[in-house]
């Protein structure tokens, strides 16, 4: 009697079990999987965040351009800038223009000195500073392209750097040929605004060289960034 009763009950549940049981099994398998990978989950999710972005990567452009020229009139009016009013460039951004008229140099200025930056213009050495910050600005460029004109550089010539927050002038004070790994060639810890540009040396030679041609310049004019004014 009880057996018949059970069979009858089972008959009623039979149809549902075709759906419910596979779902329960599936949940058990995924739960077991979760329990197995749980200790590594934070590592995996951190890795995922490193490799995945919120949007699909755009390969049509190599860099973002944030450079909007400032008129000379507005530039001459501004003597000091609050740090909060400046849009700091991100690595790889085109953020300005560099002009050395006497050497025939007029090129885009990038933040960072990646291959892409140097392919398209002059790069700012990672770890140096932006114009107006009151520290060392270290710029790099290829001697075969954008910095080829540095071979004609002379003491006293003017360097203009235009950014979205102001235009800056520097005066060339000297040049030197030094080894690429010579850390005394520039001082990134200097507490005053100075410009250092470098490229491979000798110019127009075939082959990779360990020497660099350094050009030094002093700050002349341009709005100073007030780091206190946040």
């Amino acid at each position, binding site marked *: 009697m009880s*057996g018949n009763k059970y069979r009858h009950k089972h008959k009623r549940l039979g149809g549902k079990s075709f759906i419910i049981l*596979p779902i329960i099994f599936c949940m058990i*398998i995924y739960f077991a999987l979760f329990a197995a990978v749980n200790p590594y989950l934070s590592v995996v999710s951190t890795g995922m965040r490193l490799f995945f972005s919120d949007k699909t990567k755009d390969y049509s452009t190599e860099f973002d351009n944030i450079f909007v020229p400032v008129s000379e009139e507005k530039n001459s009016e501004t003597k000091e800038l609050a740090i909060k009013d400046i849009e700091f460039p991100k690595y790889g951004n085109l953020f300005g223009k560099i002009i050395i008229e006497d050497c025939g140099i007029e090129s885009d200025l990038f933040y960072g000195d990646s291959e892409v930056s140097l392919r398209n213009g002059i790069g700012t050495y990672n770890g140096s500073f932006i114009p107006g910050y009151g520290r060392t600005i270290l710029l790099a460029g290829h001697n075969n392209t954008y910095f080829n004109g540095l071979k004609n550089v002379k003491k006293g010539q003017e360097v203009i750097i235009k950014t979205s927050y102001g235009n800056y002038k520097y005066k060339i004070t000297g040049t030197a040929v030094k080894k690429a790994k010579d850390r005394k060639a520039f001082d990134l810890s200097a507490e005053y605004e100075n410009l250092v540009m470098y490229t491979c040396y000798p110019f127009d030679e075939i082959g990779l060289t360990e020497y660099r041609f350094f050009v030094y310049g002093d700050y002349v004019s341009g709005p100073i960034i007030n780091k206190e004014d946040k």
Partner: protein
Amino acid sequence: MGKKTISYRLKSALYIFFSFLIAVSLCFAFIGLLLESTILNSDFIYDNMNSSNYFVDKKDEINRKLTDLGYASGLDEEFFEGFVDELMISKDTRQYLDHYYEGKSSVIDTENFCESFNKALDRYVEEKNINKVDSKGRDYLIKTASRIYRGETELPFFNTLSFYIVNLKTYIPIMLGGILVFVAILVLVIVFTNKWKHRAVRYIYYGTSTAFLVTIIPALYLLISKKISQITISSRALYNLLVECANGATILMLFYALFLMTISIGLFILHRRIKNKS
């Protein structure tokens, strides 16, 4: 509760456990088959390279990097025009992949590249009548160029994965064979120890339909979320290759899931027929 009911419940629980084992085994088989037809299949990556335009994109990327090198070493852009072609990359990549799948620790062979580069450099110096050539700088340039070519052509992490690939290639077929035998035994046990055949079919159905659910979830997630297309890789060639491989793997997952779904539907129909007859 009667003895018969207890025994019936125990038997049911045991068969349900067998169904679960079938499901887990089929999931492992799914992982094995997926690996066997993707990363462990030497043609999979190479075929996807062809279909994702990898060699054309890679050629452009290598030429761009070599041109950058040219900018720093006194070489014009025209020097690198047609210097590296798709055929050269394709041939070197094929050889590189084959070596890995054969278990040899291999790197891209740059001997041909260095030879061609050296000859092209001689021609260039002669044509342009260049006097300023530093032999040390020239050697360094050739070495750097070949390093760029090798670095660009090799697949990232492949060197590290090679060891696991070789080991998996040995063990996965054994694992798949073992799973197949295990599932067959379970099915036979369920069929021959059940008086009512429709019940046996139902227990097998539980296993296959669970495996279907387990496999369809990641496949649908990959298909709907399009997560793979959001991966950030600076190389366009590698990005396209990875997306192509992931899409291929997703389709395989869907096929496997659909195969399991078909079997499950078949078993469901069979269950109904046998039950109605009895």
